[in-house]
């Protein structure tokens, strides 16, 4: 077990394509770190650089106290689990798991006992004589895990290991991997494009976009305090609602002016953000998560919207309601929306011309019909404001 440190790490491919820029990250001993982001964001390249499967163009990578920039993958003492399992198809399950031990010329008895222990831990004992092709996807995934844990390496690297499994099995394997990691206490770097996977498995997540680390921290922290509009849009399902509003001063406070409605900001929101003063008269991006919007009485609603669709999901209902406002059309939001899984619409997408569709997570027992004009309240302590020019969150 060891720490992994990436210091100013960059990667430029021979054609000149930059895959990773100035990546700085310290992964603690025994930590479960998840790299998450849309396709092409550089997360897999970063992982492969840690593994030694890609050369580093800039910076240093250290495992423990050792700088491993020029060290062969096999000498880094890491184990990797691949997207397509990468099992040796002609070998039995036993031989697959034993392979890295044989590569280290371990004694036969030791190999047998280690393989059997790993197989027992993963419920593979009865399959040891079989070939990978005779196993299901989930079982193959376990074999790949077995090949990783049998080594007792310094760290596990996992490259989208669940993406080939069906949804139900993915959920099951998610918790199995997380539990196994906790049990073994081995430093783990896990790559996924699925933000639900990242949120549920990682002790810390690192959100990447276009080769640049956007934000890192505990999942709940990133969810509650996204550093920029991309992170806000990417994390969460359904995604955050976005619309543009003009900031205007109103006595000691501020108001957000939509096309035909005004949302008065509560003193608490304003007090924490003195820099809002600089945005007076300008448009900002407003973000609010579906669970932070609520359907309320006529008298207490701060916004009004027209219901365009209702999806009852059993434990909750998603109400799609249109308000007259300008959509946030930043590249970051579009990219995050395009890569979203399970989200039913792009966050901030427009309903009709000049309208934005908000998603409200609500009680399924409420009787709401399409076409209703409904009053909505906004939890302002969970309101997110973004500088449209830079995409950065306005937190100060």
């Amino acid at each position, binding site marked *: 077990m060891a720490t992994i440190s990436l210091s100013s790490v960059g990667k430029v491919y021979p054609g000149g394509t930059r895959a990773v820029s100035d990546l700085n990250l310290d992964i603690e001993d025994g930590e479960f770190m998840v790299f998450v982001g849309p396709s092409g964001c550089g997360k897999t390249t970063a992982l*492969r650089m840690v593994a030694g499967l890609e050369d580093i163009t800039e910076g240093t990578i250290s495992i423990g106290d050792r700088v491993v920039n020029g060290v062969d993958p096999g000498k880094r003492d890491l184990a990797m689990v691949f997207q397509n399992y990468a099992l040796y198809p*002609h070998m039995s399950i036993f031989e697959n798991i034993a392979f890295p031990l044989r*590569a280290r010329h371990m004694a036969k008895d030791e190999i047998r006992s280690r393989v059997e222990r790993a197989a027992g831990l993963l419920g593979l004992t009865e399959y040891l004589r079989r070939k990978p092709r005779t196993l299901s996807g989930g079982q193959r995934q376990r074999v790949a895990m077995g090949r990783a844990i049998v080594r007792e390496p310094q760290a596990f690297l996992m490259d989208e290991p669940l993406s080939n499994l069906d949804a139900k099995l993915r959920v099951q394997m998610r918790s199995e991997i997380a539990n196994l990691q906790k049990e073994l206490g081995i430093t783990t770097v896990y790559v996924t494009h699925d933000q639900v996977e990242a949120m549920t498995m990682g002790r810390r997540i690192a959100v990447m976009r276009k080769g640049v680390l956007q934000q890192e921290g505990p999942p709940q922290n990133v969810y509650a305090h996204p550093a920029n509009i991309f992170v806000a849009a990417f994390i969460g399902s359904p995604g955050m609602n976005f619309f543009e509003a003009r900031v205007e001063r109103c006595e000691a406070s501020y108001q957000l002016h939509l096309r035909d409605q005004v949302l008065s900001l509560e003193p608490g929101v304003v007090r924490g953000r003195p820099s809002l003063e600089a945005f007076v008269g300008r448009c900002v991006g407003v973000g609010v998560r579906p669970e932070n919007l609520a359907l309320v009485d006529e008298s207490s609603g701060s916004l009004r919207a027209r219901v365009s669709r209702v999806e009852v999901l059993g434990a909750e209902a998603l109400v799609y309601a249109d308000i007259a406002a300008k959509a946030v059309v930043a590249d970051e939001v579009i990219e995050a929306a395009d890569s979203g899984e399970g989200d039913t619409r792009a966050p901030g997408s427009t309903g009709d011309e000049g309208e934005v569709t908000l998603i409200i997570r609500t009680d399924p027992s409420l009787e709401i019909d399409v076409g209703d004009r409904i009053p909505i309240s906004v939890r302002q302590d969970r309101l997110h404001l973004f500088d449209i020019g830079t995409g950065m969150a306005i937190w100060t």
Partner: protein
Amino acid sequence: MSAPPSKAVLRRRRKILVRHVPWVLAIPGIVLMLVLRFLPAVGSAGYAFTDWNGLTLSANSVGLDNFGRIFSRGGGLGALANTLILAGVLLVVANVGGLALALGLRGPLKTRNLLRAMFFIPFALSHLATGYIWQFIFSYKGPFNQILDGLGLDSLQKAWTADPQWALYTIALVICWQYTGLTMIIYLAGLEGIPEELDDAVAVDGASRWMKFRRVTLPLLAPALTVACTLTLIWGLGAFDQVIALTGGGPSGATETLATMVWKNTFVFGEYGYGAALALVLALIVACMALAQMFLLRRREDKL
């Protein structure tokens, strides 16, 4: 008017159609193969038991005499040995060489496409024509001996294709040069079929190059190995063009192969019956060895 057929009837008809259509489509090809390839071969096999000279209208049955001649001293035994030597050398050299070239030219070498083309070209050229070029190269005053002379190795100079000790190996060298490019392509295709993730897994698992080759690459090349070995064995057993071009079977029969004997006895010496017997023996040897080899190699494939 009769009622339209029920769904069950339609389903049954569809099933019959699906089962038979492939056969119907294959029939023209099968008929052509039978008429143009198999029937003449089987028909000519009948002449192997006669003394027909290829010109007269009648032929006398001679029983197994023609086969006795083949396996007698001074008959076809020398040619059989030469054939097996050529096939053995080609099988080993073309496959080891082709595999080595494929492994070498798989990596990120800048000139790999040029080199691949260079190694493949000999196979694409006319074997007879290149055979004559090699005959010139290996002649006593040819470029090969001149190079030896230039290197101060003039004591090694000889008429390579006219020396009974060296002529067969000279032919073997040319045949290997010609076929190694093709086996290289077959192995390259096989290597392309191995997922890149396995290379990464082997690298992270810390296996040495030799372990990777022996335990991962070679077993996964089993299908390519079957194809390449079977083809080289068949080509080696049927070696003809290069022998005719380089030595014509000489000197004094030292490089005669079964294929050249078939041709000479049938079309030069007018012994069609004997030629047919030789052809039959050659066909049986090729079939038996190729099938045995395929059977053995397929068992390796089954492990995949």
